[in-house]
């Protein structure tokens, strides 16, 4: 693949001014793209919760960055690890998965656990075997389920009215068909229901997905695999006596399923790299997340599903190897490379 300098190289062989400028800058981290993607649900959360949303997001980011900085200083490692924006993304994501009224200590504890336990011991961001934000959320869910699932009523002026068990995920797990039917499709899609800060608005999350497709299109295969399996299971096995389309919509909009599918399943550190393998990985994550939804203790166990996927993927990987999956991939790659060369030869240019 040609890098920026190669693509913008003038005909006389010298490197262009803009290309040189780009070259001096540190390469962008993929988490910059994720932060951009998080902007859409953040704006929606600001629309619904106002300053509370900013408070939660800022707390998450500051906690994660501060904990990582202190840990790196103690371990006498370079602070440039912070520049990959992974800590910012982790704190941001944890804040989006919690209620808008979550206490500051709760967000800080989740971010601290994510960084100290799931990231720092393994080195740089891409070496962490688990998605740190999912680990932080799982820790909070186990330790403080009451605070994590205590969502404020969205139509309350001061957000001090807590609608216990009113979120879509809670209603689904309790089989509360009446409440779900009373919500309305538009409210469900636009996020006008009680739930986590940034995971309820399906429209905003689809916007994030579009940004993902624009930035790193191959990561879309993870999301496709994940959503395909989740949708199929939701249609085939609806919880409660919903019609199948309502079941599909409700399952996708409830809890953090869509959010996790877009931000955690596509995590560059834990995901495989090949498009087809990405699809299989996403499908595997979808199966585990839906199983936890059907049989789990908590109303939303998607974070546990992501962690289990990270843990069991090496086994799936070795199973794929046993059925010569990777040999098939290699052959396919060889064929596609040959085709590319032939195309390039026909065009008379260099292969891309």
């Amino acid at each position, binding site marked *: 693949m040609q*890098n920026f300098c190669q693509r913008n190289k003038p005909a006389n062989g010298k490197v262009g001014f803009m290309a040189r400028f780009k070259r*001096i800058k540190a390469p*962008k981290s993929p988490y910059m793209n994720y932060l951009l993607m998080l902007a859409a649900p953040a704006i929606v959360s600001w629309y619904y919760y106002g300053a509370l949303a900013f408070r939660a997001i800022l707390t998450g980011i500051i906690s994660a960055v501060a904990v990582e900085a202190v840990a790196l200083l103690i371990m006498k490692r370079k602070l440039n690890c912070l520049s990959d924006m992974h800590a910012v993304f982790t704190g941001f994501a944890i804040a989006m998965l919690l209620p808008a009224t979550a206490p500051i200590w709760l967000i800080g504890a989740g971010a601290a656990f994510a960084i100290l336990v799931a990231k720092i*011991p393994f080195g*740089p961001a891409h070496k962490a075997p688990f998605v740190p934000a999912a680990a932080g959320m799982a*820790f909070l869910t186990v330790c403080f389920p009451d605070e994590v699932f205590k969502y404020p009523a969205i139509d309350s002026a001061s957000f001090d009215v807590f609608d216990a068990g009113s979120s879509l995920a809670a209603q689904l797990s309790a089989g509360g068909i009446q409440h779900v039917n009373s919500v309305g499709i538009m409210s469900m899609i636009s996020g006008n229901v009680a739930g986590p800060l940034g995971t309820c608005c399906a429209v905003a999350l689809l916007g994030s997905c579009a940004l993902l497709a624009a930035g790193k299109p191959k990561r879309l295969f993870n999301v496709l695999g994940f959503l395909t399996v989740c949708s199929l299971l939701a249609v085939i096995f609806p919880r409660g006596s919903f019609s199948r389309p309502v079941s599909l919509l409700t399952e996708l909009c409830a809890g953090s399923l869509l959010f996790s599918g877009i931000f955690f399943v596509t995590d560059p550190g834990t995901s495989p*790299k090949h498009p087809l393998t990405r699809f299989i990985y996403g499908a595997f994550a979808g199966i585990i997340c839906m199983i936890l939804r059907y049989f789990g203790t908590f109303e939303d166990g998607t974070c546990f599903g992501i962690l289990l996927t990270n843990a069991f*993927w*090496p086994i799936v990987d070795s199973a794929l190897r046993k059925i010569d999956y990777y040999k098939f991939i290699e052959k396919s790659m060889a064929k596609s490379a040959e085709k590319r060369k032939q195309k390039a030869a026909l065009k008379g240019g260099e292969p891309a």
Partner: protein
Amino acid sequence: MSSGRKYSFSDALFSSTFIHNPVLIQAAGLCAIVAVATTLKTAVLLAAAFFPVLIITQVFACLALKRVPRWIRVAIYLLIGTAIIAGIIYAIDTFMPEISLGADIYLALTAANSIIALHCEKLAVKTDLRHAFFDSVATALGYAAVIIPVGALREMIGSSTIWGANIKVPMTYPAILMPFGGFLVLAFFAAALKALINKRFPEHSAETEMKIKKTSVIVSKKNLPENLAPAEEEKETAEAEETVEAEETVEVEETVEAEDPKEDDLAHFEPLDGEGKFDLSDIFAKDDEDEDDKDYGSAFNRLFDEAKDFDSDEKKEGDK
């Protein structure tokens, strides 16, 4: 341990308690610690029960089991351990009935602790009595030195108590009482011990390396078919360009120097610009937009890749 002098207890302490700690370095006997050592009281009981089981079994193995076939020996270790533990449980039930620790099943499982079989087979049946006795005591001490702090820490963090008495802790995290919390605490303890050994006793650091078998073969650039390997011309072009850049500006040179591929997180990331184009025919194409040359592996696989024993195996195969 020098070959010229007798094996002393301090040698055993250094080796079996510290350098080859049965829990933190050899990763044996984790079950009871992770599942039951959630309070200081339980941890002390388990540690106390482990002392007689290990010492008696190891001494008996050294004295009487050297000529017994291996497949029988392991069963005998289990029988000895069961007999001792049965006596301990009977004594507790008789003389201290008020103790209700909820550790009965794990107390019984101490008889089948992997540390016992490991040390008996590895050492007791191969050495003299003095060596076996010192090793058993030191190993039991090493076990106690881990399980007691782990139990105390988990009780403090998870229940805000110590030995049943309430203490003031800013926040209580009940998740630490769950098995995964035990694994986390053990992992941090193991990392601390490893760091201490690496710093103070670097000559022993190689002995503490955990041997991890590589579980999956990952297609790397080296394994790719020839037509997919990067062409020499492209390599040369890239090198030439880097040279041109370095000659043109000092700033670029400084930037390149600052980037250490081993330590810099960003070294494996490519710029995002120009990544918007995507062709569906690329579904089977090599995804070279991402981090490194391990195309199909997760972070777990990359961790396994870094295991030193795997590297050494590769070198051996290369030599052959």
